[in-house]
């Protein structure tokens, strides 16, 4: 069985774009959304900062929820990436860093003084992200969103391993194959033989007379170009004959 036929099986079994997959996706998203709102809501109910001031205000709550969302999404991307290369990690960790940089920039004093009504969230990042309460809530939210996915995938791999899983498992046990040894490109052995040798076998009379072995750099005539670009395969009989006469010994027809 040719390996490449396995590529057809997801399509035949309708594995990736079926109603079942859609409903599964919907359930996971609903669960994640509910967790992302309800956990900060319950944690911020009637709570205050470590120095007694407000932390349950609209801006801090929004800050907490959006940062939790960023963390959860990044964690899910980490889970879904099969090969962690340097470039991958640069972009994944870089996006978290970029989010923090942009957030602190948007909530900074400078932008507030320049565009006052557009950046009213000044101070929210500084004042909410230095609370251990907030970080503990974020950690809890992230774990609650990620652990069910991990548990489900692990169970799936245990009970119904796909072929990919089996191959990976095997490859992991056997270790990485050694890289192919470097072979210098083979030197061309000259295949030219003298025409004296030809004369002892049947000969290449046909080849010579057909002039095929000569790499003729002949510019095709305009007429030939036009004729051959006409629908050669389904052209009418007269066209075919005319073109054949003109082309003569050149090439086999490809139909």
């Amino acid at each position, binding site marked *: *069985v040719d390996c490449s036929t*396995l590529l057809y099986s997801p399509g035949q079994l309708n594995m990736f774009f079926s109603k079942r997959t859609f409903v599964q996706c919907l359930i996971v998203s609903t669960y994640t959304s509910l967790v992302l709102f309800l956990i900060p809501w319950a*944690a911020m*109910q*009637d709570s*205050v900062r*470590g120095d*007694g*001031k*407000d932390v*349950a*205000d*609209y*801006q*801090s*709550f*929004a800050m907490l929820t959006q940062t939790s969302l960023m963390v959860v999404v990044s964690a899910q991307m980490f889970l879904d*990436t*099969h*090969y*962690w*290369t340097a*470039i*991958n990690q640069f972009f994944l960790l870089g996006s978290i860093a970029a989010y923090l940089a942009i957030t602190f920039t948007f909530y900074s*004093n400078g932008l*507030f*003084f320049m565009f*006052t*009504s557009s950046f*009213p969230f*000044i*101070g929210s990042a*500084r*004042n909410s992200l230095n609370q251990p*309460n907030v970080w*503990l809530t974020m950690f*809890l939210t992230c*774990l609650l969103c990620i652990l069910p996915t*991990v*548990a489900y995938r*692990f*169970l799936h*791999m*245990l*009970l119904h*391993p796909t072929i990919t899983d*089996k*191959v990976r*498992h095997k490859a*992991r046990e056997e270790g990485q194959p050694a890289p192919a040894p470097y072979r210098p490109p*083979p030197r061309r052995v000259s295949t030219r033989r003298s025409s004296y040798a030809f004369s002892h076998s049947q000969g290449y009379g046909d080849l010579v007379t057909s002039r095929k072995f000569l790499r003729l*750099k*002949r510019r*095709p005539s305009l007429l*030939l*170009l036009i004729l*051959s670009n006409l629908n050669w395969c389904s052209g009418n009989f007269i066209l075919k004959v005319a073109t054949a006469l003109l082309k003569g010994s*050149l*090439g086999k*027809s490809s139909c």
Partner: protein
Amino acid sequence: MASSYKDEDGHITVSGSGAAAGAGGGSLRSKKPENTAFKQQRLPAWQPILTAGTVLPAFFIIGLMFIPIGIGLYVTSNNIKEFEIDYTGVEMSSPCFTCAQNFSWNGTKPCTCSVPFHLDQPYESNVFMYYGLSNFYQNHRRYVKSRDDSQLNGNEESLRKPSKECEPYAKHGNKPIAPCGAIANSMFNDSLELIYNDPNGTKVQIPLTATGIAWWTDKHVKFRNPGAENTNLTVVFQGTTQPVNWRRPVFQLDSDPDNNGFINEDFIVWMRTAALPTFRKLYRIIQRRSNVHPTLPRGNYTLEVVYNYPVRSFEGRKRMILSTISWMGGKNPFLGIAYISVGSVCFLLGVVLLIIHHKYGNRNNAAEISH
């Protein structure tokens, strides 16, 4: 028609007629990508695979880590002392019932009521006094937008011409309102005082600190009084009028010039809109006196209320909360309980997965990987 073949070096050579590419076929450049690690996808990579050796210990470690954290949070929360008293005056037996019933906007004489309460435990260290409102949606979108941050930052132009977002609380009788908007208009204006009833009969008024209740960034960066430093605020705010529901203009909020005008801390705390319909805002701080005496000893107290704020029309409730504070904030057992439950569920899940792995986990080693 045109025959092409690839010789050993990978060069594509085209011979014959009909070749659209150029003057009768020289050799084209190779289309094969370069043999670098980046382009051939051979970068050194780590492959995270969910094996039993990684997932199961992870579940157990998370379970074992979360349970002590949860216990710590729960114990910390339980050690915080909190006292709450509702003084809306809805029931007939409540001391503030008459004030609640007789509320009128144009009343000259403010209504006062005294609510007695008893503290069972002494409160040490700084005690924070909050006012709480219920069923008050400070997170309503149109309400949240109804403010002018430029005006509150001391911008002279915005003082005379408030932004359109403040409508319909931007002008009153042809004069611009300072501060404009619905948030400022609905500012909480009850006055609360605490009196300790000594066992030998004397009434001691407890000193309340009104500064240091707002965020530093709010007080020093976001909110500024218009005009230069140390100018008379009455002069600066001339030509503007107070919000419709206020009894005093903004430059008479406090006699302390550092707490007057837009930088009044009660005003700043109110302008930081709450996220949820039941919220509490810091009102005053009771500073601790000494390490020997508790800040609020056990005993009988009286809460003196100057009842200015009407909440009956939207079935809201008002309450006063006294609370001590820890590193994790006020009394909120949710995080502690959540961590303990998530930790135990994780641990149980780890055990279940371990059992399943032990019984059924050999399917990965199946030799038949069909080729």
